[in-house]
């Protein structure tokens, strides 16, 4: 009996689903965001309004800055930790795995209030405390991205080869491990960045202003402007993440192609 291929029906179905879920609302929102004053005609007036709002640039800059810092801090903390766990700390792996899932289990309110109390005073009074929160909420994802990547390379052999050639641990991590798990690192960075730049609840609870919290306030003044903000955020986030993905792909290709 001839087997029926489900490939094309699945492609058509998933494309249809994507159109319904993502493209139709985005298209609809875009149409609204380009409406002229009084809801008539098409213009860029809502985007102009957005760009001239107080707090737009500072909040956007703050979010980008905190997201970048969170991504870097996450990598600085997690890459050596994951390397250690995969090399020598196998017995602690399930414990760390459990700890990294906790941010998904603990209610955000408890996490925000509890963790803030435990933070040093100097951080409690600084927006940089958000970096630590962003790192915490990204842990479940970065743990898995890095762990999967580390398991695909001959980590032990590469580390031992590097050490036996006279390299320090720092050199080994930077020159050998990081390039070998580039895809996992990009994934971890990608996820931390995406989670950080869109994080609202903790920021709002701790009374800091980032782009998401500013957006909520600004959106209450102008409904079409609010839609323009949504479209801007969505397209902007996709553009930024695409740049990261493209950069990572290019550097991976560079390593694979002969000099």
């Amino acid at each position, binding site marked *: 009996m001839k087997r029926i291929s489900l490939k094309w029906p699945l492609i058509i179905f998933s494309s249809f689903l994507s159109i319904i879920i993502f493209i139709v609302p985005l298209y609809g929102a875009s149409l609204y965001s380009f409406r002229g004053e009084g809801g008539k005609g098409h213009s860029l007036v809502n985007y102009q309004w957005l760009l001239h709002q107080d707090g737009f640039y500072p909040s956007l800059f703050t979010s980008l800055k905190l997201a970048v810092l969170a991504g870097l801090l996450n990598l600085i903390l997690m890459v050596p930790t994951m390397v250690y766990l995969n090399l020598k700390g196998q017995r602690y792996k399930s414990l760390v795995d459990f700890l990294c899932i906790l941010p998904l289990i603990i209610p955000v309110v408890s996490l925000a209030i509890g963790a803030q109390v435990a933070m040093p005073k100097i951080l409690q009074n600084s927006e940089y405390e958000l970096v630590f929160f962003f790192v915490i909420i990204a842990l479940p994802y970065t743990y898995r991205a890095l762990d999967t990547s580390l398991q695909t390379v001959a980590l032990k052999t590469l580390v031992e080869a590097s050490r036996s*050639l006279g390299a320090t641990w720092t050199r080994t991590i930077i020159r050998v491990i990081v390039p070998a798990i580039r895809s996992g690192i990009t994934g971890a960075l990608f996820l931390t960045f995406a989670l950080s730049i869109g994080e609202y609840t903790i920021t709002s609870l701790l009374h800091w202003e980032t782009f998401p919290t500013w957006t909520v306030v600004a959106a209450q003044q102008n409904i079409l402007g609010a839609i323009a903000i949504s479209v801007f955020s969505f397209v902007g986030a996709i553009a930024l993440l695409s740049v990261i993905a493209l950069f990572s792909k290019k550097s991976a290709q560079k390593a*694979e192609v*002969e*000099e």
Partner: protein
Amino acid sequence: MSKSDRVSSTLELRGVSRHFGSVKALDGLDITVAPGELVALLGPSGCGKTTALRIVAGLETATAGDLMVNGVRYNDTPANERDMGMVFQHYSLFPNLSVSENIEYGLRARKVDSGKRKKRIDEMLELIGLESKRSAYPHQLSGGQQQRVALARALAVQPRVLLLDEPLSALDAQVRGQIREEIRRIQLELGITTLFVTHDQEEAMAISDRVGVMSHGRLEQIDTPIALYNSPATPFVASFVGHANRLPAEITAKGKARVLNQKVDISSSAEEFTEGMKVNVIIRPESLEIVSESDESATRGIVALKSFLGPMTKVGIAVEGAPLVHLNIASREVRKIEIGDKIAFKISSDEVMAERV
């Protein structure tokens, strides 16, 4: 790089032990590798040979004993400060670095200036004959080429001791032979002290100055390949090195035994055997010879197996009351022998080794 560029080192392991809980992976290992010597550690899986090598490399810590290089204790020196070059069993080239960058890696770690680095890379590439592959990445090389680059990378830093951890086991038979000879050529050319771990006796015997046979974390015997083969110190060495028949026998008098209805002399051993004791004797296939069926003192059996091994053919003879007895016969002579033929053979060896059952 030539012999004069380096000072060959003496490597000593003095009573080195490594315990994993109650398991003794290594139990009081004593070995001295002379400057420029290639010593192989040979043994079955789990005998402790790789643990010994890893202790020398600084990748494992000894539970007891001392590791000395040129008389200096190295036990507490970190792996990256030991100046040992190591080639691993698995391909260990850094995948993101080209061949020349891989070779350069250890030199950069030692902060060698760029002019010297470039010169050393050229020398190493010439040594392994891969000048044309300097810009290739590991995934663009064959297994044999990768191991040659790994060897060049280990040698580029002019290590005190070269450590080879079954570097040929991942290669196919033909390439293995080539690389084996290449390793020996380079080792002799550079005069570098080398410790080579393998479970392949042919490999160990072919390129080593001395071979140490290990079992259960202990060194059974260390000697030249010829001495090891001809004068094994223990039954384990006799059966592990080369091929051997292990046949049931009975002690008939002090130093005498009867095996396959033939009388043999037992070689001197630490073990005392008393008359009437059941033992196993170890007889090499080449110590058995086909004789005429009319020879009254010969053992008779039926040919049950013929395995062509090139110039020699291994013949298995089924004898009543004994496991299959193996003989090596020149392949040009074996044509006359067919499976199922009756055959007579004698033990030609002066002495055989015995062990308790």
